[in-house]
């Protein structure tokens, strides 16, 4: 039981981290919380279903296409909705919240209330260390999730775009003084944030099929990860994801299955009380 809950905690944690990275990126660069983050995740799941299942494309091609499509949609959303509100946190919160409801009801109209599931990449289950059976698709999701996270960090470290992101999330004014075009950076990072949500969506939808309203818990967990890890801190948010995954699964295994999701909020409240800047956040601006 312990081994299973730790393994499952890590798998779920990596997935949480992947979802939360997009939120963290957008918060760090634009100081905007995207309440529709979960809906972009779901959107990617639907795209992937549409491309792979309905149009019969190869699952990998379908996944890449879905991420690209969501990236473009993210850029359009930034351009039309977020940009005009820039500097007014209040309106970006309200706009993305309304956007999330609009997207949910659109999903319901287009795809109906039933869950939609892109095809599995692999079948069956593996006996892990001779201790327990574990779904192969989940193991595949773990590997894919970890790979995307690694790729993202490599991009942060190695590319020009990554350096701009790190500079801007450290000190916006300095970055502007140094001639970084923050407008274009905002647009790209918002698109990137959505693309990260999409990556999580396409990786996870074969495990957890998407429904119109399934994005809400996804986004909530991502927000908790981000606050837990410290707003804008990328490593913090990965750590936050892992902590959440473990806490939830250990809690479900040894305390209560019905209150599984309350544990994460309890941790959140504790962190806010004791260390408001998050586990890995910088303590002041």
């Amino acid at each position, binding site marked *: 039981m312990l081994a299973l809950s730790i393994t499952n905690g890590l798998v779920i944690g990596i997935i949480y981290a992947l979802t939360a990275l997009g939120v963290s990126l957008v918060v760090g660069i634009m100081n905007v*919380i995207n309440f529709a983050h979960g809906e972009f995740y779901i959107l990617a799941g639907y795209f992937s279903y549409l491309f792979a299942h309905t149009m019969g494309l190869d699952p990998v091609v379908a996944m890449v296409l879905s991420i690209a499509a969501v990236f473009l949609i993210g850029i359009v959303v930034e351009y039309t909705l977020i940009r005009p509100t820039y500097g007014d946190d*209040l309106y970006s*919160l309200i706009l993305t919240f309304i*956007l999330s409801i609009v997207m949910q009801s659109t999903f319901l109209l287009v795809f109906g209330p039933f869950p939609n599931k892109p095809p599995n990449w692999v079948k069956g289950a593996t006996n892990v260390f001779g201790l327990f059976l574990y779904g192969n698709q989940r193991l595949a999701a773990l590997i894919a999730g970890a790979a995307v996270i690694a790729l993202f960090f490599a991009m942060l470290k190695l590319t020009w775009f990554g350096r701009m992101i790190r500079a801007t999330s450290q000190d916006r004014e300095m970055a502007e003084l140094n001639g970084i075009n923050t407008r274009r950076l905002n647009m790209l990072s918002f698109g990137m944030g959505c693309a990260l949500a999409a990556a999580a969506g396409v990786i996870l939808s074969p495990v957890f099929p998407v429904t119109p309203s399934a994005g809400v818990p996804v986004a909530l967990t991502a927000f908790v990860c981000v606050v837990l890890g410290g707003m804008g801190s990328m490593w913090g948010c990965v750590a936050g994801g892992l902590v959440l995954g473990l806490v939830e699964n250990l809690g479900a295994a040894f305390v209560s299955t019905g209150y599984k999701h309350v544990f994460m909020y309890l941790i959140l409240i504790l962190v806010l009380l004791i260390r408001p800047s998050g586990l890995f956040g910088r303590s002041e601006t």
Partner: protein
Amino acid sequence: MDMRMTKNRWLLAAGLVAFALLPWGLGVYHQHIMIVSLFYVMMAASWNLLAGYTGQVSFGHAAFAGIGAYASGILAAKAGVNPWVGVAAGTLLAAIFGFLVGILCLKLGGIYLSLTTLGFSEILHIIINNEYEITRGTMGLQVPGLLSEYSKLAYFYIFLAGALLTLGVVYRLIHSDLGLNFRAVQNDERAAASLGVDVVKVRVLAFTVSSALAGMAGALYGHYLLLITPQIPSLDQQFLVLSMTVIGGMGSFVGPVIGAFGLEILSEYIRAYGEYHVLAFGLVALAVARFAPRGMVGIFRSVWERRRQAAVHPSLPAESP
């Protein structure tokens, strides 16, 4: 100026009397719509106090209504407490929770409030579902009415009183010294702090009052529906309240009133289109928030101002909301 003031006052009084007499000429169905609209007036006006006047977005306003409703409902249904006492207790409990959530996250700034209230509303949902022996979960808690005899007309007046009380509290607050502080914090919190405004205190106060008003609205609503369900503290409900305020006009006194009546009555008509109606609301709210962030009131006002500027008098007296 004074003449106009008194004239306005008379007009307001006459309008109120006319409104108060309206349900006598309406059937049961339309009386119901009026009552629900008045509930939303309470919700939207109190949410507006927070979002429109101090610039913080709470996504837990419906949750606080839920706290009020469940507290009052459980007291009445399980302990036999008089529903009116229950309403008072529900209001108080919502205020206490508002205060605690406020001091937990308001010193950290606006985004934290939005996230924490969202989490708060989620926790509340899980608790309501899990503690079904007390709350009856999604089945809903059957509660007694406020009066021994069920009468739509009586409920209309109770809700009218509740709405007037809410609007009165909001009006008093924004027209007091505190109102100045509220607006200063919304405009520029750093400048406000440099002028001696205790930003955290102002926010916690606004959040506490706003939560208490939501608690009262929720408690009254529960005793009107006679059934308290997790629908009261749901995100859908939150969305509706937010849309009403945004479409009516955030940061204006009458905006939420217009929004609440407008959307509730509209939703009765487009109900037939079922699934399209949430989408339609969402799109309208999105368009308004994007292109007319001051809502319907803002649109009317800019038309009004343009007309005045075209008129002979160039001076522009301050518009009081």
